[in-house]
Every structure is written in C-alpha cells, then in structure tokens.
C-alpha cells in the first residue's frame, strides 16, 4: 500500500497546491515541500527496514507488491512492485524532488500553484514508472510525466522555450508510441501462446517469441528508452530541453527523466528479450562509446553553461549503455551507481547554472569569469562537482565509472579502452567550467552575492551525498545486488567463466575499491 500512497501523496499534493495556490503562493510551496518530505522520510524508513533483510533472500529481489484489477477485460491491473533498483531510484526521485522545490522557491514568481502542480505530477509519473509492474500501467505513467514536463519547459523556461518543449515532447512521444506498439505486440504473442491475455510483467517474462519478431519488439522498447537516455543519434532534444527548462526542470530532466530510460532497459529490455538483447549488445556498446566521446567533445565546444552540462550528460549516459550491455555484475553495479551519482553531480551543476543565471542574467560562460573572489563558497562547491563529474576518486562518480569500465573490459576490450579516453575528455571539459566561470579576470562591475541559506542547504545535501557515495557506496551496492544477480542469471553464457567470481563479487568490489583509493 505504501507504493500507492507515494503516488497518491504526490498527485494529491499537486492538486492541493494548484487549488490553494490561487490564494497564497507560499502555501503551494510548503505543500509541495511537505508532500515530498513525507514521502522521502517514509521511503528512508522503508529502506532502512528492508536493508537488514536484503541480502538474506537473494533469490527473490521483490520487496513489496500491490495489485488491484484495473481493466480486467484486457488483463490490465494496477500492479505496483519494487525491488532494490526501484527503491533506490524512488529515494532519488523524492530527494531530487525536495531539492527541485527548494531551488525554485524564489525563482518562480508567477502561476506558482500551477508550477508546483506540474512539478509534483512529473514526480508522480516518474515514481509510477519506477514502480509499475504492468506494462500498460508502465506506459501510462511513462506518458503521464510528459505533459507536465511540457508545461514546465513551455511556460517557465527561458527565451527559446516553446521550441524546446515541442522538441522534447515530440521526440519522447513518438518513441513512446513505438514502445506501445511493441507492448501490444508482446501482449498478443503471449496471449496466443498461453491463452492468457495479460499485461502483467511477471507473466510476460519468458514469453517464447521467434527471434525475428523478438528483435523488432525489442527495438520498439529500445527506441523509447534510448531516446530518453539518450544515446547519440537520438540526443538532439536533450541540449535544447535542458538549457531552456527552468532550473528545477533541468534538475529533474537530468536527474530523473534520463534515468527512466536506463531503468526501462534494465527492467524490461534485458529480461523480456535476453536473446535479442545479446544480439544488439555490440552495437549498443559501440553507440555508448560514440556517445561518450561525442558528448564530451561537444561539451567542450559549448559556450552556454547549461548546454555544456547537458552534453556532459550525453557523455555520462554513454557509460550507462556501455555498462548495461556488458551483462556482468560489476558493470551493472557500476550502471546503478552511475545513475545515482550522475543525478546528483549533474543536478548540482544545473542548480548552480541556474543560480548563476539568476545572478548574472546570462548563461554564456564567456561573460563570466573571476567569480571565485566574489563567491568563494559557490566556487568551491562548483569545483567539487566538476571534480565529481570528471571522476575524481573519493567522489561517487569515480566508483561508478570505474566499475563500469572494469565490467565492460571483460566484455569488449577495444571499446572499453576507447571509452576510457572519454575520462580524459571529461577532465578537460570539467576543468574548463571552473576555469571559465570562477577563475580568470573578472569583467564585472556590480557585485554578486554568494549562497543564501536556502542554497547552502541544497548544496550541502548534494555534497554530502556525493561524498558519501564516493567513500561508502556499499549500501547502494547491497540494495541492488539481488536484482542484479537475478538479471545476471538471465545471461549465463557470458558469465560462464566468471561464475566463481559472482559468489564473491561483493567482497571483490569492496576490495578493488579499497585498493584504488589507496592510490
């Protein structure tokens, strides 16, 4: 039931914020904050509670399950369930949700009620995506988050917002519809095989599909997820949407919306179409590596701060796809780490870009420079997150990228080596941010003020979490371990020679990590 409440509190909070926002703008801010905090705290307690028992039942990764008939004639049910991966991403959703509310506290002055309504409904859609265990319901939530996001970009964005909002919506909607076709196709194939027509994820698992059809169905799913992720030929919506969206919008886009793509691949593509996924793996890894390099190069050549950060996302998400299609535990653990740490580090960079825009009224890094003297706090924090983004040991992103590269090395040596070059590029673009924005001569006359108290709180939360993930990632690794073991189980061929390692994978992780840190 807690899962239903989680969605309910977001939707209800959104409606309340919309209605009460007519009278008092502050009220809707507080409502949004309370709704998200309540959900966050409830989830934290739930996590702590589950964490104790998590590694006892390794065979069953599912923690909680809620099912209620919805459209029984079609075999559609309102079916929510979470495992470690979902739980982790849900915690992330609520965490970033709180930060999104906080960082738009003074930013948004018009139509406040409607703004928080949209914000909360996006988060409700995203939470639903992470929980839905019925493919129809999944698609429902998948689409439901688009409309409020469209409004968020289209109404509160910057100059070129309408174009960006269109582009975002049409890209994601088109790819989503192709996924709907694939879902319906899978539904009928399963129905014809077994006589049971259902959209239930657990029953659709292991549907016998002829390889040719399976490949096309998988592509239907894949296209929706790689557009969201995004991987390279489908990424063009991302820089526009990220740079035009308001700060909270960029935060949610980069921190959560992109994650739904990776989540979809992990949850649906790999388990539903293992054989087809294996066929696709070399190509997917290739495109991942292209994304890493291409994103990094384009990031380097941007002058718009938000676009720059947006392209670093493309680069980082390349690692995700590379890791997923390596099909082994190390890489998959790295992918999950990457999802969390990228959300935090890139989110922080977007928030700071928003703060700079608010103060300087520009996003062009050529008009910045020398800000460290006036804003030492922001400079230091920006330095930290730039370091995180380039993968400095001790911060979360390092663990993630390191694990992915180690895992991918087993699958494909050449591509991994090329991907490693991406790390060097990331050092270049990250340092360029710091150098262009905070160092160098200052051209500014009028003073700018440093962090306010609210901003310090936001950045402190982000800093603590990225350092925590860098120093002690074990809770995250343990939480998703049952789910990843299950996933790995589907791909036994690749792992035949590494079976032995699997049993001791966790100590191995910790060991490697310790060794690396000593360096």
């Amino acid at each position: 039931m807690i899962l239903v409440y989680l969605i309910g509190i977001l939707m209800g909070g959104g409606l309340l914020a919309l209605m009460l926002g007519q009278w008092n703008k502050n009220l809707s801010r507080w409502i949004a904050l309370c709704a998200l905090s309540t959900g966050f705290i409830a989830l934290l307690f739930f996590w702590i509670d589950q964490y104790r028992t998590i590694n006892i039942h390794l065979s069953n990764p599912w923690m909680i399950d809620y099912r209620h008939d919805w459209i029984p004639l079609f075999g559609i049910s309102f079916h929510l369930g979470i495992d470690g991966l979902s739980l982790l991403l849900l915690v992330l959703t609520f965490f970033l949700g709180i930060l999104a509310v906080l960082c738009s506290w003074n930013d948004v002055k018009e139509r406040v009620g409607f703004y928080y309504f949209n914000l909360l409904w996006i988060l409700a859609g995203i939470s639903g995506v992470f929980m839905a265990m019925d493919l129809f319901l999944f698609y429902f939530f998948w689409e439901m988050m688009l409309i409020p996001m469209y409004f968020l970009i289209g109404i509160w964005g910057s100059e070129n917002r309408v174009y960006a909002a269109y582009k975002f919506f049409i890209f994601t909607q088109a790819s989503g519809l192709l996924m709907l076709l694939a879902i319906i196709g899978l539904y009928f194939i399963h129905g014809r095989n077994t006589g049971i027509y259902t959209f239930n994820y657990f029953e659709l698992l292991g549907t016998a599909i002829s390889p040719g059809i399976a490949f096309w169905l998988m592509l239907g799913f894949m296209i929706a997820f790689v557009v969201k992720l995004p991987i390279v030929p489908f990424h063009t919506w991302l820089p526009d949407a990220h740079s035009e969206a308001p700060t909270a919008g960029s935060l949610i886009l980069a921190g959560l919306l992109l994650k739904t793509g990776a989540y979809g691949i992990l949850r649906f593509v790999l388990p539903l179409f293992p054989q087809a996924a294996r066929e696709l793996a070399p190509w997917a890894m290739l495109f991942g590596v292209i994304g890493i390099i291409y994103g990094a190069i384009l990031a380097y050549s941007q002058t718009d701060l938000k676009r720059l950060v947006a392209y670093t996302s493309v680069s980082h998400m390349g690692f995700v796809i590379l890791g997923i299609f390596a099909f082994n535990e190390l890489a998959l653990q790295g992918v999950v780490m990457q999802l969390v740490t990228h959300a935090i580090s890139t989110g922080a960079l977007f928030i700071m870009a928003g703060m700079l825009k608010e103060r300087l009224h520009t996003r062009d890094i050529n008009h910045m420079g020398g800000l460290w003297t006036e804003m030492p706090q922001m400079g230091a924090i920006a330095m930290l997150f730039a370091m995180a983004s380039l993968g400095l040991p001790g911060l979360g992103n390092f663990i993630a990228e390191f694990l992915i590269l180690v895992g991918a090395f087993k699958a494909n040596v050449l591509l991994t080596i090329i991907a490693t070059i991406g790390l060097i590029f990331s050092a270049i673009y990250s340092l360029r941010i710091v150098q262009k924005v905070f160092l160098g001569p200052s051209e500014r006359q009028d003073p700018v003020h440093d962090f306010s108290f609210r901003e310090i709180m936001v950045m402190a939360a982000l800093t603590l979490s990225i350092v925590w993930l860098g120093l002690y990632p074990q809770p995250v690794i343990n939480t998703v371990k049952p789910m990843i073991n299950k996933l790995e189980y589907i791909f036994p061929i690749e792992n035949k020679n590494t079976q032995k390692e699997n049993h001791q994978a966790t100590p191995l992780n910790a060991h490697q990590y310790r060794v690396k840190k000593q360096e």
Partner: protein
Amino acid sequence: MSGNDFFALTPLLLLAGSSVLIMLLIAIKLSHRVIQLSSLFLFAVAFSSLFFIQKLLPYHIEPLLIMDGFSVFIMGLIIFSSLVVNILSYIYFEEKEDSPKEYYVLLFLCTLGACVLAVSKHFISLFLGLEILTVGLYALIAYLRERHHNIEAGIKYLVLAAFSSAFLLFGMALIYLQTGSMEFSMIARSLTSLQSLSPLFLTGLGMMLVGVGFKLAVVPFHMWTADVYQGAPAPVTAFIATASKGGVFAVLFRFFIMIDGFRFKVVMLILIGIAIASMIIGNLLAVQQKNVKRILAYSSIAHLGYLLVAFMPGSMMSIKAVSFYLIAYFMTTLTAFGIVTILSNKETDAEDIESYKALFWQHPVLACIFSSSLLSLAGIPLTVGFVGKFYILAAGLQAGLWVTALILVISSVIGLYYYLRIITIMFAGQKSILSEEKKANPFFYRVSIIALSVLTLLIIWLGVYPSVVISFMEYFRLK
C-alpha cells in the same frame, strides 16, 4: 405492424414527433428560450426511451430496420450529441439571430436521419436516413445567412452531397443488379459462395464507397470538409463532426460486417489505402492551418482514418474498438467545438488561433476543458482518447495490420504538433485578446460551461477507468 414494432421504434417516433411538436410551438409564437428548453426536454425524453427498449433487443423490423445493442448504442451517442449541441446552440444563436427557432426543428430532423442510418439494414432505409440527414444539414450549415462564409459552405455541401448521393444510388443499383436484393443479409447470402467479387459488384461497392466516403470526409473525398467546418455555425459543425459521421460510419460498418467484405483482397486494399491516406494527409494538412475550426476539420479526417484501422479487421475486437473510439471521438469533439461556440461572439466565431492567446490566464476553466479535449484527441493518457487509441492499435495488431498501426502511430505524432500548438497558445502571453464582454445570457452561459465540464470529467473518468463502458460493449453483435 405490431405493437412491439411501435414500441421498438419509440426513439425514432419520438424524434420525428418532436420536430412536428416544435413546429407547432413555433407557430404559437413562443419565445426562443421556451423552444430551446422544450427541445432540450424532448431530446432527453428520446434519449431515455433508449433505455426502455433495451429488453426488446435484438429486434428486427423487417425488412428495413434492426434494433440491436450496437445500433441502440450508436443512437444513444447521436441523440446525446444532439442534446449537447442543443444546449450550446442557445447562447450561440441568441446573439446572432432574431428568432432562430426553426433551427431546432432542423436539428431534430437531422438527428432522426442519423438515427435511421444507425438502425438500417437495407439500402432503402440507408438512403432514406441519409437524405433526411443531409437535407436538414443544407439548411443548418447555411443558417446564419448574413455571413457569406455560411452561404458558401452551404452551397458547397449541397453540391457535393447531392453528387455523392448520386454515386451512392448508382452503386446500390449495381449491387442490386448483381445480387437481386437490397437487404444486407440477402446480399451477404448471395456472396457467401463467391471467392472473388464480380466486376459489377465491385464497381457498385466502389461507387458506394465514394458516396459514403464523401459523407465521412475521408481522403480523397475530403475537399469540402475544411470549408464546411469553417463556414458552418460552430454548433452545427459539432453536429456534422459527430452525429452525422457517426451514423454513416455505423451503417457502413454494419454493411461490411454483414456481407463480410473483409475477405476480399481488393476491398481490403482500397480500405487500407483510404485509411492510410486519411491519417497522413489529414494530419499533415492540419499542421499548416491557423484556424481552429479548420484544424479540427482536418483532425477529424485523420480520426476517421484511425477508425478505419479498427474497422478493417472486422473482428469482435473491432466492434468494441470502433464503439469505444466513437465514444471518445464524440465526447472530445463535442467538447472542443463547445469551447469554440462559447468563445464566439456576435460577429465572428472564435476560430482564429490567435484569439486563444492567454486564454488560460483569463478563463482557466475553459482553457482546461479545451486542453483536456485536445489532449484526448491527441491520445494522451489520463484521457479517453488514449484508451480509444490503445483499443484501435490492439484491434489492428490482433489482425496483424502492422503497417497501418505503424502509420497510425507516426501520423498521430504529427497530429500532436498542432494540438500542442493550440495548447501552447492558450498558455502563452499575459493578456487575452478576447474581450471580457458581458454574455447576453449568463444563465445559459453557465449551463453550457457546466455541460462541457461534465463532458470533460467523463473524458478523464473514462480515460482512467474505462472498464465500465468496455464491459457494456461485450455483447455487441452485428451478425
């Protein structure tokens, strides 16, 4: 005719009687308001009579009519949409015409025609219904005779409808020549042994398709649509888009199911071609438009194309998919045109897309209603349009129509662009250019808004919880 026959015909008799009654009421010079209210009441009576004849179903009135679950359902939709149109008409015509009372007589007649179409199973009743509908529509379209667009639209519709009726008649004659019958089931019987169609029958069928295609406004018979939609008074446009097309579609569907026309390759190819062309061309043409009524006109072409995708499998699933999509389409179209009607003023209809600028900040309720109907037309979840589109895709994919389903998906993405454009305009800017004028009739203004709000709630409710309606459609049979 037995007593039961009369009982089964109650809805039709009520509609016919109402038109005469209203005419008499006009003769004793009652006010517009009384006429409107009494016709509203009569529509409600006709609608509720549908529930009383439920227990008779299915009932055949040989050889012309059939009352079964499907036809009563379609009649219900038609009468319901006339009822909504009737509500909307008052504020629209009150400020434009001195005494627009005859309008209601015509509305009853058109509704009657559409209903006859829905229940007919014979060429004679088909043609009869179609002519009652069309002749009424000529006058309705040109009702505001001061506006020159109206006259133009009326003439255009007159010429093309007469033209298409001629095609239809000739096609019927050819089929009669071939099969020796005009009743659907007899035609079906003479076809059962045939593996392929004779050229004569095929020509007849083709000509009928031309005639029906004109009424449905599917590509390539769509030329009149945008002009007529634009020229006709907004409530009448709503009627053309819903009731008139619904009736024609229902009878076409029944005809094809009964003669099992889906097993002939040529026929299928023609239908697939029409469906694909309607979806793509309808959506593409709408992208260019700057007039909301024209956008909705082209979007309705595309929607008929979607309906044809559900139509083609001819399976049990397609009956349900067509029925469900018709509900979705009727409700959303009525809502959209309802907003256009409410926002129209004395001189012009609210058709310029710019006139919707910043509507959300001025009339949040109206903007929300319009947005949700547009989102439903675009097929976004939480609205009934999404479930409808899902149903259509399911029906299509069940029969293995992958190509048409794919084209449906692609073209609906194109469609998304222009629906979003209207929505974006409603949210853009600060000041609305619609003047905050005093409405002539605050009472009816409010009633119209309430009616549209109810429709909107239905759109969302059925989008979230469609099983009520779906289980109701379980028992539709057409053979």
